[in-house]
């Protein structure tokens, strides 16, 4: 496997974004201590249950974990170090909102060595439409503030927005590429069920681009990033060189182990030769109660069957530009991939099968789910 990670979910936000369907709760002036203490306890309880092994990565996601203080973060990192141990070069990422830039130095002092900044757009109109609290200028300033700490910096953008043209997006993307960030996550806007955007679409108040437009936007994204030396290493993630990749996220795509702590966090742990899927209670009060009763933040871990583990390996692995190593994946599934399907996708120019690796071509990436679903059968 490819290392061991810890994902920490901090579910609180000061404002809920209309496109987000994560496990989030709105909170202002929240007493952070009870949940922070519960997460610390959960980390220890995980180590007690599954054994000590040094963590290669910690990812503080949410929600808005940049609402945490440097001291909160130091406490969480300290708990991982105490319970599991930390690899000397461990990657510690904080998801951060631009409006929390004044706290970045404090976060860095607390142990964060990689900032992932939710820029989302560099156009004020678009930021308002996305329901964000910041404007473009403060987003730029936040990226610069993060870079000034000397830590690694990544930024997120959301594209394929309503009415977005290919040229305007290319210009916006070029501006983002000019910022001091080694990594970009470029997500096409996805309308998730149950969100405010979902309701707006159903009422005809929001019309995201159709598939053809979205495909054209994806293609220009690849061209602009390639030219700027930040090619995609995953469907939506771009890095300036292999060292700039998110080690934590690569661990997800390559089938590594991680524990998920905090309300609603998912984990995958290989224990006693079985791969377990875990999901913590969504509601903070239920989560806290479970942990304070001496357990982990969930009831039971679900053992994955061989088929399920195989499916996950294919669904995730095909997303990487490096491709999916065929031999290990087939060994895990216990059966080879359907040769006819591989050949048909190959003929259609969507999939390469070379040197024991299955790799999506650029047009294949736009159909990654369809291809993965077919191969995973």
């Amino acid at each position, binding site marked *: 496997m490819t290392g061991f990670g810890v994902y920490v979910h901090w579910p609180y936000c000061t404002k809920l974004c209309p496109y987000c369907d994560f496990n989030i709760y709105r909170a202002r002036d929240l007493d952070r201590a009870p949940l922070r203490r519960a997460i610390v306890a959960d980390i220890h309880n995980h180590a007690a249950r599954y054994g000590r092994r040094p963590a290669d990565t910690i990812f503080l996601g949410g929600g808005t974990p940049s609402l945490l203080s440097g001291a909160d973060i130091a406490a969480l990192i300290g708990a991982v170090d105490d319970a599991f141990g930390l690899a000397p070069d461990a990657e510690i990422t904080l998801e951060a909102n631009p409006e929390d830039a004044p706290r970045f130095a404090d976060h860095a002092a607390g142990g964060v060595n990689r900032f992932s900044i939710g820029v989302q757009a560099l156009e004020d109109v678009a930021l308002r439409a996305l329901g964000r609290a910041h404007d473009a200028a403060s987003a730029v300033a936040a990226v610069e503030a993060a870079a000034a700490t000397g830590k690694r910096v990544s930024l997120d953008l959301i594209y394929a927005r309503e009415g977005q043209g290919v040229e305007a997006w290319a210009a916006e993307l070029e501006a983002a590429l000019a910022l001091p960030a080694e990594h970009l996550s470029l997500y096409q806007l996805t309308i998730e069920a149950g969100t405010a955007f979902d309701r707006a679409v159903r009422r005809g108040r929001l019309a995201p681009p159709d*598939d053809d437009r979205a495909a054209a936007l994806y293609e220009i994204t690849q061209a602009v990033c390639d030219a700027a030396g930040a090619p995609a290493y995953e469907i939506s993630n771009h890095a300036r060189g292999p060292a700039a990749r998110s080690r934590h996220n690569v661990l997800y795509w390559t089938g590594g182990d991680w524990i998920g702590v905090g309300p609603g966090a998912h984990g995958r742990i290989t224990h006693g030769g079985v791969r377990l899927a875990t999901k913590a209670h969504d509601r903070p009060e239920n989560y806290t109660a479970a942990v304070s009763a001496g357990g982990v933040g969930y009831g039971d871990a679900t053992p994955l069957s061989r088929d399920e583990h195989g499916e996950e390996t294919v669904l995730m692995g095909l997303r990487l530009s490096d491709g999916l190593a065929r031999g290990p994946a087939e060994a895990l599934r216990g059966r080879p991939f359907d040769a006819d399907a591989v050949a048909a996708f190959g003929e*259609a120019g969507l999939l390469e099968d070379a040197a024991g690796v299955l790799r999506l071509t650029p047009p294949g990436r*736009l*159909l990654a789910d369809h291809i993965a679903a077919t191969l995973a059968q």
Partner: protein
Amino acid sequence: MTPRDRIRNFSIVAHIDHGKSTLSDRLIQVTGGLQAREMKEQVLDSMDIERERGITIKAQTVRLDYRAKDGLDYVLNLIDTPGHVDFAYEVSRSLAACEGALLVVDASQGVEAQTLANVYQALDNNLEIVPVLNKIDLPAAEPDRIRAQIEDVIGLDASDAVLISAKTGIGIEDVLEAIVTRLPPPKEGDAGKPLKAMLVDAWYDAYMGVVVLVRVIDGVMKKGMRVRMMANDSVYGVDKVGVFKPKATDVDELGPGEIGFLIANIKEVADARVGDTITLEKGGITTPLTGFKPAQPVVFCGLFPTDAANFEDLRAAVARLRLNDASFTYEMETSAALGFGFRCGFLGLLHLEIIQERLSREFNLDLIATAPSVVYRIALNDGSTLELHNPADMPDVTRIREIQEPWIKATILTPDEYLGAILKLCQDRRGVQKELNYVGTRAMLVYELPLNEVVFDFYDRLKSVSRGYASFDYSIDDYRVGNLVKMSILVNEEPVDALSMLVHAGRAESRGRAMCEKLKELIPQHLFKIPIQAAIGGRVIARETISAMRKDVTAKCYGGDISRKRKLLDKQKEGKKKMRQFGKVDIPQEAFIAALKMDGD
């Protein structure tokens, strides 16, 4: 044996929901057939589907023992009849065993089309009819208006209609008295003559085997006697004779005018032909009673297992259903697209739906049903004729002289505000108006319509344009020459035989266009472009194209998304199971039915 003048054989004629089953239950309860605690809701509708849909499918019978106000004991035989048009045949045989009928009408809703059809049948059978107004306890009840309506529409004197509430029990004694005093006893019958009995119905019972319901005309039927079924010319030893009270109860014998059951060693329901005459093996009568005309399936469709591996299960299931339902027919069919299945015949669309539902519910089968089709008569140039049950079997057009299609006579009753929409619907379906009368604020329409325009979704459309207020009934009228053509549907240049149909030439283009549009909605995108065409012969009359899948990718996929993605995959797998592959194209099962329900809107 009951003296003939103490017997009353009667049916109840009513529209769905007008309270027939509740009244039956009350009559059973009041005469002591069942204790209150034994009364399941609506005793006579014993199939799950019957109870759920509030309809009666199989005729049932119950014997009520009643001491009337004159102090004498009477035997009242209630023969329950199905209400729906598809089962008009079952109605006819039930009525033939009776001398009278109760016409139950909801005192606020009044006469419906279905009531009319059944009451006319009862009048045709010379039955004495007692009108009963039900639900008179409801505030909306208008007995005077409904009485007048019965007189206007049916021409029946309703001045002494019995007012009841089957639900609360008001008037039940009056009904029993009316049965005794106003309905006649069996007209003739001589216990001394050789046995002559009518086979009213037959069904399969898991414990008793084939149960035969009989009405004795002359002579006596007893256990141990050997009887002959005249139409089949088969002989059976009578193992048991009994009556339903409503529990099956053995009796020594059944005499003239009596209704009861007999059990002999009969293997299949199909061996007991409804309408047949039963007599003695030796010394019996030689001239049978006038039988009923057998029920003819009028609607056909192909039923195929979604998973070809389940064909044997389907075979066993249709055989089981046939055991108890002689009006359901099936024969094996092979489709290039769907593999092995059965071409099944039904009395009508409700019958089709019920059989499909029973197959999926009781036998747990996942089915693909092809377009319902009627029976066409095709006259060939060589002078021969053939009956076409399946559009896929249509001979080459050059060999065909003419095609005839079945027409129905439809009666529709509707509040007049929906009349315009209904006239348009009938007109669109090639209907020919025969009558249009007003009864108060309601219009009664009689139309002749080609059955093939009705089998798809006429009833759904009628309900929708009238907000559920129009009622509809039909009977098969005759066969008429029609300008009919076979329309094929091609998906990705390949004909899908299960979607082909015969349509009227004048309607082909709009039908083809609607069909292509619907299929475009129902067939998912593939990696390649899929043309969908409707064609007559080699001529394409409509075309749609499903564009190639351009994008199918999750933007964000991290640790928390894996489980969700895998669930999505499971759902896709489930969906894939419900698809059939035609060439390179996966067509979902629902496309076969939904593509046909598309008119109007």
